[in-house]
């Protein structure tokens, strides 16, 4: 399966995790996601996701002037965002465990 398709459902959790670690602006969040190994995450997907999480109240945002170029809009996690991240962690742990089991079984059958 295409990694980008896998990513689609989990980008919310990934973005929340990055912002929970430290507040960040759009390009910064993108860079950190890529640095963490999500190399093929789309620029527009990250910016869109941040805006949507902000609208849903999972993120706050504030503007800081930047030395280089225009001001930057930083995102920070809210209590609601943390709750959503915790939920995503649990769901992901269960889901990945289930899928790992399934895939390992599949490997055994075909092997």
């Amino acid at each position, binding site marked *: 399966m295409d990694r980008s398709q896998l990513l689609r459902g989990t980008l919310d959790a990934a973005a929340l995790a990055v912002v929970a670690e430290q507040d960040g602006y759009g390009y910064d969040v993108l860079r950190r996601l890529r640095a963490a190994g999500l190399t093929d995450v789309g620029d527009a997907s990250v910016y869109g996701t941040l805006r*949507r999480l902000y609208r849903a109240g999972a993120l706050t945002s504030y503007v800081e002037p930047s030395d280089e170029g225009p001001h930057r809009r930083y995102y920070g996690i809210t209590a609601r965002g943390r709750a959503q991240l915790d939920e995503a962690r649990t769901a992901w742990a269960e889901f990945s465990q289930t899928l790992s089991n399934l895939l390992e079984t599949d490997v055994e059958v075909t092997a």
Partner: protein
Amino acid sequence: MTTAAHVPSEVESYLARVRAALADIPADERAELLEEVEASLHETASETGGSVAAQLGPPEDFAAELRSAAGLHPSTTSQTAGLRESFDRFTSDPRVAAIGRFLRELAPIWWAARGYIVVAALALAAGASWSTSHGAVPRIWNGKLGAVAILAAVAGSIALGLWSRRTPRARLPVAILNLVLLATVIPVAAHLSHRAEPASATRFVIQTNIIPGLAYNGAPVDNIYPYTRDGRLLHDVLLYTGAGTPLNVSTTVYDPLRRILVTKSGARVYNAFPLRYYEPGTRVVLRPNAGPKVKVPRIATPPLPAQKHRRKAR
């Protein structure tokens, strides 16, 4: 650095195409989304050495991904987008555009009217009295000052109209003002139509009292006495109009004393003259040949040939 000057314009043109692809998203949400994107594009451009499109792909694809990730699917905004699209199609129709241009040219008429409406509405609201000689002019201390106020308001309104035409941000408040004033047009117009005639003018009331039965020069005719040219009073002459309408004299109140002719089939005939009345309690007309004192003139014109009596005896 030549690239440094080149970088912003490439970002801007890329951003413009993204913006165009998101045209159906509500304006404030789109502005925030694009603000986020713009800052990031500048960083992308400065890191990759300028070519944003090479790094990010076509702006339309970028916009689609952005829209999808932001949860702003076309379907969620399609209703307003569809409305806006059909509105745009409506306003871009050449005939509608022509009407729009025409109305814009007529706008100064509204500006002048608007100035008057402001003064008239305020005067109405304040319960001011109105000039007796010029019913449209409210009295502010006196009628002259009222006229001055109207002229000043009209001039101010025209100035406002000219200014708002040049100033886009003034359009919305002015449009709201226009709507409010349009609502006051009705009471003002009602007042004006009420005041259309000065109080001193004479009112002509045309009374249409239709006289029942026969009338001559507006006065009721209570009887008709037909005489022959040689002075003989005729009885039971049936009178008809040129259209064949019987000249009925049928009083609304039933008069039992009136002698009314009856046909063989029992129908009553009301156009027989002269009208005659019975003596109370009898079926006798006391003086059947009574008539007004008239002196029938001597007629020199030769008589017309008498029509043969064609009715067959039944």
